[in-house]
């Protein structure tokens, strides 16, 4: 799983996709997940990291992460 190479990510949570011209905003957890993906973490590593940091159970977290991944791919932000 990879974020497309040419996607620009700003510190305050804005994402720009130069190939489509679309820009996006994220909340802080959304931004965190994208950063972790960019660092090359796997989904399982991301889950581990976030479980440690946040008050959330594994099932809920997995569910929302999956949702979020779907959003990323439906907005063409992930490498096929």
């Amino acid at each position, binding site marked *: 799983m990879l974020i497309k190479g040419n996607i620009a990510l700003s510190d305050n949570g804005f994402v720009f996709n130069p190939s489509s011209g679309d820009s996006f905003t*994220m909340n802080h957890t959304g931004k965190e997940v994208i950063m972790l993906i960019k660092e090359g973490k796997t989904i399982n590593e991301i889950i581990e990291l976030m479980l440690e940091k946040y008050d959330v159970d594994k099932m809920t977290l997995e569910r*929302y992460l999956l949702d979020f991944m779907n959003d990323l791919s439906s*907005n063409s932000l992930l490498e096929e």
Partner: protein
Amino acid sequence: MSKQLFERPTITKLTPGVPSKHGAGTVIAPMPLIDGVKVDDLIEQYGSPVYVFSERTIRKAMEDIKRAFSLRYQKVQMAWSYKTNYLDSICRIFHKEGSWAEVVSGFEYDKAIRNGVKGENILFNGPAKSALELEKAARNGSFIHIDHFDELFMLSDICMSKNIEARVAIRVNMDIGIYPKWDRFGLNYENGEAWDAINRIMNNPKLKLMGLHTHIGTYIMSVDAYRIAASKLAELACSIAQKFDHYISYIDMGGGFASKNTLRGAYLSGEDTTPSFEEYAEAITSAIINSQIKPDKLPTLILETGRALIDNAGSIAGSVLANKRLSDGRRATIVDVGVNLLFTAFWYDHKIHPVSNHSGLVEETTIYGPLCMNIDVLRPSLMFPSLKRGDRFVITRTGAYNNTQWLQFITTRPNVVLIDQNRKVHLIRRAETLEDVAANEFIPEYLG
């Protein structure tokens, strides 16, 4: 180290230059408190969902409307519209503020009596009063607002046969330049029906014509409609004075003032478009004062305002049950408040606030209730922050009609609490149980 609060990760596409249909910059403020009381505490103690009323807000609204009208007119009398909210504690707050009772059924009539309202301070409206109810109201000296000729004849017969008198008014409907015309209630002004009824009453020794009544509709945004209605009633009052040398003691303008809720699909928020009490008051009182009625004969002005006095004071606090993606990609959030508890979701785009802080980021969301029914939609589309299962929210301005038109449907109805003026919380209607609901049922022996 304690862990941080988790917020569902979201990503939202920006469409520069083109504000969405929800307008630019939707800001949804968190609402941790209702009238100074923590929503989390309310839910922990009384469950989710829970109806919450603020006595301060009720009293403030009464103060505002009384000030707006009595600054402009000497004799003003409020009458609480029972159908808008007849929880006994709510009615009693209005009665303590000086309101009479406005009722539209025998059930509501008896409720008002139980709440300590004197018979002579009850206005009895509605098209369906029974003979027994009419007799009781006449004996108690209540004001009977006659809706149609059959009722006029029935009341006349009762008074003759029992040898009693009745204090009456007629409900008048008229063309006030707005649509829809409410001509199904009362007697028509333009076609002479109202004048005909007045003549019959004036010629009947058992019936005492005390006033004229109209109720031009509900959520009426046009103050001009009230101006026209008030001047037509004032004209009728003048004709009565001229022909019979009789001065009616009141003009009752009914209810219908808009609350600050936003109608479903309206482009502008009710907060910006709803006329103030001052504007309604100016239209109504100037129409009466500027009429041909002599200054020393000006009648009492009665108002049966419902919605505009109680909508603001009621909220529902609830919890998120689930989230899902709809096939078109929209987010859907399922909550534990359904249209069975929030009937007004059919009319209003109710505001919904998360209880806790959120990142400020919102996305288009549909909010569904928990009923297994297609109609159970609280908001078809709104910009809403991402809440996860268990997160709490407050739906505001739910005080009018929801605790009378609610349905015992699929599930039981939850607790209702009142926050008093000292911020003390009182349970004013306990949650229903299966036993409550089953109590009126009988099972024939062969099914036992």
